[in-house]
């Protein structure tokens, strides 16, 4: 019997939506608690998404990492291209890490489980999570092609009616340095998908829903209307921005024209430099994710994340530019380019709504990545994340050391030392690195690691804004933050290259400060006195 058309009044829709959101939150909690790798468990580098039968997202947790914004539903649609609905069965799980279909680098594994009700495909439960290792060269920017960056998994049915494909599992295990962690995290993702499915089916039972079509339409169109209303408040115009990143031998230029007309926004990156034979290229899905994230944060942060909220946003980037890479471009360290997008968007919006944005942030996310051998000869590898200072705004100083736009926390020093062959000699604020201004930019931090392994370990970095021209810019007369630096045994090195640490060698990572807001001469004398007392400025 077909469902009678339902009207969604403000009450019924709120009840259903609340329930959907809580099922995604439950799944995220389960994924977090069952995961293995530091990267998921301490750094929250994952997302859970519930989408309709066409792979259009309905609910995604609001506090997920932005790199997964909109990517999971896109990947679901690629799954559907390869595995149309009639080829799917209850208990199947589809999986890929293809960088152009997924999130732009190989470690992110996206999975989706079709949800059936009375024999009909009604939804997809999806998840993306950063695997602790995917083979290939360890997180270096030096790869010239994606083939060097690890195992590429095309869309495939990893689980058939509840049974994990053994061939796939063995292939995957063989191709990673830490197979137990990788498989453990994958199981955590499967657990989350099952939970979303159970909760969704219970909700459909309770409310007598045969499918989600009408509900999806309602959720998506209301979100779209709210987003469009927020966009309409920004004055029409074209706002331009440009930023230099550290790049390689030469800085890389990202160019933006933000066309705001009526209730839509086009972010056009024409003029941006071409892709490079290094692992810092960005796939279009990632460019879209960070563009949409910045627009939403500045204009209407409270609108829930779903397909509808992003319909008013169009992203254009010429094929083959570094923001829309084409195969076989490498992209393992895409964040080193992509994390410049939110500040770039905000700098353009600052021309229209300066009081609602922030100055440059000491992002992108930094990391130390290492691989070495334990005393027993077994392989060990890990990443340790760290962040720079946050940008100041019209409201306040930029907080010291705050993750943005990635929202990835650093692992505790005590946990790092328990499980890895390092001593952390210090981890402290890097005073004096926040840009001066009426409001001061947040300071960066510095970590000094000493190799305590019996033999050499190979280290690579994610590190950006180490050139003076790439420093986090100030806003409205505020000064730029101090650039970052990487030092091996006290000597500054090229952070884009791999380095070998012998036992006893040290490496220090100094993250950049955030930009200031407003002219420094306008700073409140009491704030200056407090800065001096606390040693933030000399």
């Amino acid at each position: 019997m077909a469902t009678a058309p339902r009207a969604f009044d403000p009450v019924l829709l709120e009840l259903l939506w609340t329930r959907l959101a809580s099922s995604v939150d439950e799944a995220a909690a389960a994924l977090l608690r069952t995961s293995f790798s530091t990267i998921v468990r301490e750094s929250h580098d994952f997302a859970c998404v519930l989408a309709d039968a066409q792979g259009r997202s309905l609910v995604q947790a609001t506090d997920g990492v932005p790199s997964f914004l909109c990517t999971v539903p896109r990947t679901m649609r690629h799954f559907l291209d390869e595995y149309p609905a009639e080829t799917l069965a209850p208990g199947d799980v589809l999986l890929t890490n293809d960088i152009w279909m997924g999130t732009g680098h190989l470690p992110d594994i996206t999975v989706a489980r079709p949800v059936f009700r009375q024999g009909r495909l009604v939804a997809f439960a999806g998840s993306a999570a950063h695997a602790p290792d995917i083979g290939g060269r360890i997180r270096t920017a030096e790869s010239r092609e994606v083939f060097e960056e690890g195992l590429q998994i095309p869309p495939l049915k990893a689980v058939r009616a509840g049974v994990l494909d053994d061939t796939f599992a063995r292939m995957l295990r063989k191709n990673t340095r830490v197979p137990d962690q990788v498989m453990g995290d994958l199981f955590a993702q499967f657990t989350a998908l099952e939970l979303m499915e159970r909760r969704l089916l219970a909700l459909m039972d309770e409310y007598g829903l045969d499918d989600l079509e009408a509900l999806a339409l309602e959720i998506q169109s209301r979100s779209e209307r709210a987003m469009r209303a927020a966009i309409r408040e920004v004055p029409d115009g074209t706002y331009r921005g440009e930023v230099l990143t550290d790049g390689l031998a030469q800085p890389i230029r990202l160019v933006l024209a933000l066309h705001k007309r009526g209730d839509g926004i086009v972010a056009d990156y024409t003029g941006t430099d071409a892709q490079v034979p290094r692992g810092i290229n960005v796939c279009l899905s990632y460019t879209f994710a960070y563009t949409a994230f910045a627009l939403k944060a500045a204009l209407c942060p409270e609108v829930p994340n779903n397909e509808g909220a992003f319909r008013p946003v169009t992203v254009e980037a010429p094929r083959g530019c570094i923001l829309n890479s084409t195969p076989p471009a490498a992209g393992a360290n895409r964040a080193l380019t992509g994390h410049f997008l939110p500040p770039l968007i905000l700098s353009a919006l600052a021309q229209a709504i300066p009081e609602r944005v922030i100055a440059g942030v000491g992002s992108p996310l930094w990391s130390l990545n290492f691989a070495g051998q334990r005393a027993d000869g077994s392989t060990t590898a890990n990443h340790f994340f760290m962040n720079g200072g946050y940008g100041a705004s019209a409201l306040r100083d930029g907080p010291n050391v705050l993750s943005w736009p990635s929202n990835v926390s650093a692992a505790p020093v005590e946990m790092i030392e328990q499980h890895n062959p390092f001593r952390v000699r210090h981890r402290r604020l890097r005073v004096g690195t926040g840009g001066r201004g009426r409001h001061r930019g947040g300071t960066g931090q510095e970590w000094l690691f000493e190799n305590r392994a019996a033999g050499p370990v190979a280290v690579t970095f994610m590190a950006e804004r180490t050139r003076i021209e790439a420093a986090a810019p100030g806003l409205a007369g505020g000064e730029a933050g101090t650039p970052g630096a990487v030092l091996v045994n006290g000597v500054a090195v090229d952070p884009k290259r791999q380095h070998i640490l012998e036992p006893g060698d040290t490496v220090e990572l100094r993250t950049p400060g955030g930009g200031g807001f407003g002219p420094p001469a306008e700073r409140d004398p009491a704030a200056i006195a407090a800065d001096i007392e606390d040693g933030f400025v000399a």
Partner: protein
Amino acid sequence: MSAPHLALAVDIGGTFTDVVVLDQRTGRFHAHKELTTPDNPARGVVTGIARLFAREALACADVGRIVHATTLFTNALIERRGARTGLITTAGFRDTLEIGHERKYELYDLHLPLPEPLVRRSLREEASERIGPDGGIEQPLDAGSLRAAAARLVDKGVESLAVVFLHAYANPAHEQAAGRILAEAHPGLPVSLSSEVAPQIREYDRTSTTVANAYIKPLADAYLGRLSTDLRELGLRAPLFMMLSNGGLTHLEEAQRVPVQLLESGPAAGALAAAVFGARSGLRDLLAFDMGGTTAKLCVVQGGEPLVAHRFEAGRERRFTRGSGLPLAISTVELIEIGAGGGSIARLDALGLLKVGPRSAGSEPGPACYARGGTAPTVTDGNLLLGLLDAEGFAGGTMRLDAGLAERAVGEVATEGGLATAEAASGIHAVVNETMAAAARVHVAEHGRDARDFALLVTGGGGPLHGCEVARRLGIRRVVCPPAAGVASALGLLLAPARVDRVATLARTLDQLPPEALEAAFQRLEEEAGAVVAATLGPDVPREVRRGADMRFAGQGYEIVAALPPGPYGAASLAPLRDAFLAAYDAIFTRRPPVQGIEFVNIRVSVSAKPPGSSLEPGLAAAPTPVGQRGLRIEGKLVPVPVHARAGLVAGARLQGPALVEDGMSTLVLPPGAVASVEANGNLVVTLPGPRQAADTPLMEHAP
């Protein structure tokens, strides 16, 4: 003179100080509410006790023990009224406290405020020393650097000191040495050591906890000292016990040693009372649901005991947002707070959805129907329009509700949303219920349980009003409404066991741990905890010892708390220990990962003992009072619904829903099909009908 047979409980809340005295010979109790006196909280306590004892003609000499809970220390943290505190860390790590987790608690808010560290940078110093992750000393403590650091802080007027060295959970030797050196150099200066306050791995959380302890320590010392003096002057010679956040009692010295353990003592007492009331009806798995004017609190009671968590957040920047506060690694009765209460405001959001809360009209100006100037539509306004409240007899008849004002306020949001006023009123009721149910569902799921396996125990002004409907949304069939819900927390104090929890970090896998080493580690904790319990209730009271551990598959980053079999452990214990972990893991997660190694991160011991004489008499009236009647529209039909007075119900009585039961402070709503029975212990136990087909059909509609 008879042996001391009275037990006295004092619970200081934000508005009222509740005083309850229990006659342990008869099980009868007497209660009194005194206004809290924030400038000197001991004054309200003393006045309240004096009034109650005079009213009931009781003698102070007959009191055998006094139990106390208070929210004073939590408030001091929230309002930043603690001591000027200094911090000394391992060289290289003085900024750990300020760097924190580096995460934003709301990613999309570009301008979010972060909690200021309790100790500013100029009051954070370093000492040279280093202990390795295995507890080995890698660099000895440089006493000179420590003394110099402390001297600089004392010169800057520091009144309390925290010491946090890296890996002190693995080896406290350097912190202990620092404690001795500082006591010598600065006698009388309170010093909090991380290895005593929170001996657990993860340096930021441990630092945050130790600093919070140091911050409230002078305040706690002064207040508790003053209170015991005042009580003695009143003629009360009995020992004073404090309720800890974990729902256990301890003696004064232990409370003063680590006062950060007292932060949640008030809510812990409430949860404990719920567990006790539930147990009296034979219900040991409960969701304790307390709904007041601004918030609702929910606590899972399992096997007759409130669940205890080992993390807590204090002083949140945004009250209902996780991660916006200061993390504290303490044992605390695990409560969630939901932004849903009688004063919660209904509005249409930017998407045209009806949202209720977390913004609240509070008690001033309060809901529109209070006629104190509030114009926003609230949950209470909706409830009044639905006929659920008695406009004349609200809050024990102290307040008259104005239905016209409620109608106008709710009417505005109704018009905006294209609804009839009655639809909006039932919509507000439904949405606030779903909000609370959704929070409960996620919370219960985080423990790997299903809400349907629990009964709901309702307290607070709003608990009985909304309880049956929240229960239905959770698939719960049984709802318990206890007597004397207004002073439940204070009653809980009298029924609480003495309980001391101890923790130690091992960070070793099962196969790296010789069973005898594990046994020795547990025994150390048990001796420590047992000594405190013995000092609280005397050496002869039978003690219950429980072992547990925070465990994980080797390589996982989050631990689960597993209950472990009792000791002593030997070679044969490995399999049962492994099984205990696997059982706990399976209970939470549907899949086991393909990993063999099992790691003990922290081991935990809980030693408890029940105080003597803790039974209650319900004190039911003998004769039923006449019932009134109110009109409710239920599923489109006007139904005259009987109104019962709670005080008039006799044991054994059965009520058929739809019906209302009023008791001065609250109204229990029995939906159609529900059956309530009055038990001899004073509880009203409601059995709800089976699952409904169309969940969105409003249960109650407006009575014209």
